[in-house]
């Protein structure tokens, strides 16, 4: 049933219909008026690779604009924005944290869902514990590391465990998916529950093992311009760019699903 893949990105691209612009190189936004100004984008940590790439191509397509990126956990980012941090765009890894922003009336318009992510099992290269599916994670000799239920990846882990009818007892419940991945790449843990995009980005440092129940906890990524931006037009253009075909191509290549 489960299948080991070195890079889940490939597996994920298959079966997904790429929209209109199928090329991997994103095309310019096509707005007629020349854009100018600096924006600061607060984005979930899991978007680091894709947003760094998208910001660079956005800047190339719109000379005169500068995109400054700030990556951290979505919850920490929302707290900072609510406390007055100068963000022009916010991209969250889950809808709950986006709701905190919009509840504080800081979203300029409705947030747009632009990507999805699902959990996968990450194991050290060579899969020393011989994990093949989710039930293997309940074996007493398997040292599993997951996120704490308080953070989105941990909530997702609980959901998939419930839908598989198993009870997970991790040796450690981390605050971020990065910490889970670190415990797996260092070989401390036999397995970790992380997002497919994390495994894709980690390259040869870990192997990913898909499992069917992952579909029961799909994480949705929304993005919105933040109110009060000094470069509201650039912020809006960047959001359009990420949610458009160019953004989709980059996100799909990194393993994200279509929203």
């Amino acid at each position, binding site marked *: 049933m489960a299948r080991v893949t070195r890079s889940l990105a490939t597996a994920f691209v298959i079966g997904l219909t790429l929209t209109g612009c199928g090329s991997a190189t994103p095309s310019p936004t096509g707005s007629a008026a020349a854009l100018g100004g600096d924006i600061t984008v607060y984005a979930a940590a899991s978007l680091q690779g894709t947003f760094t790439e998208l910001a660079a191509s956005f800047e190339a397509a719109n000379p005169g604009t500068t995109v400054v990126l700030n990556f951290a*956990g979505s*919850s*920490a980012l929302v*707290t900072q924005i609510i406390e007055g941090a100068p963000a022009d765009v916010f991209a969250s890894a889950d809808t709950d944290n986006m709701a905190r922003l919009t509840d504080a009336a800081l979203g300029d318009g409705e947030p747009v869902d632009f990507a999805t992510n699902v959990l996968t099992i990450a194991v050290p290269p060579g899969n020393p514990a011989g994990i093949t599916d989710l039930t293997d994670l309940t074996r007493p000799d398997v*040292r599993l*590391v997951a996120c*704490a239920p*308080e*953070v989105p990846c941990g909530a997702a882990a609980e959901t998939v465990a419930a839908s598989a009818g198993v009870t997970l007892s*991790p*040796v*450690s*419940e*981390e*605050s971020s998916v990065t*910490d889970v991945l*670190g*415990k797996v790449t*260092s*070989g*401390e*843990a036999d397995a970790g529950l992380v997002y497919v995009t994390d495994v894709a980005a980690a390259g040869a440092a870990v192997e990913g093992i898909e499992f069917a129940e992952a579909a029961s906890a799909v994480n949705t990524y929304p993005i919105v311009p933040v109110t009060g931006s000094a470069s509201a037009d650039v912020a809006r253009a960047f959001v359009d760019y990420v949610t458009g075909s160019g953004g989709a191509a980059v996100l799909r290549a990194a393993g994200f699903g279509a929203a």
Partner: protein
Amino acid sequence: MTVPRWVFAVAGLGAVFVLLPLVAMALRVNWTEFVPLISSESSVAALLLSLRTSLAATALCVVFGVPMALVLARTDFWGQKVLRSLVLLPLVLPPVVGGIALLYTFGRRGLLGQTFGLLGIEIAFSTTAVVIAQTFVALPFLVLSLEGALRTVGSRYEAVGATLGASPTTVLRRITLPLVLPAVLSGAVLSFARALGEFGATLTFAGSLQGTTRTLPLEIYLQRETDPDTAVALSLVLVVVAVVIVSLAHRTGEPSRRRARALS
């Protein structure tokens, strides 16, 4: 000396800089919910674990730190200066770096971890790992304060004891240690405080599991994600504990300084 007035002004600004954030935090505490917030199951588990591991780490600091301070203060050998700087390294090292270093030492695939594994001892993800991380960052505090005290006290009494026929161990037990006991205590209190606040090395090296490895700082970091009220309430608890400890350290440290002055 008479302190110039402008010094007071700058000192006052410095004090405000340190105290204002604490006041700001105290203002955010949800006082009506304070007791339930800090007495929840996970909060109590984290507090008890923190106290337990910090005490164990402090004991280890005393066991290893006192001999280390003695060697650094009372002997002279080639490379001592370099050794001292290296021993004090955890003071300036970012705790995360300490955690990574510990991981590669005691971790499952680490330098010593494989040997421990063969002996059936698993350190990663255990409370032992927390104590190791805390000892690693807290040890320099004890060594540093004790070495300073040993140097200030001087070795004249020790020399007299030795000429009267006391063995080195008797001199250590009857003269040196009683003289610097206040410094050992204040050093131990400082080490305890540092161990209590340990976060980065623990998170990197030991993991985070309620009752096993999730100490109070880790619990605060986690609660901040979903429950800022609990995070703030627990932060205040940690601040209060720290204030009590620092004042304790000051009180125990005072006599050693006074005695040192009388001796010199």
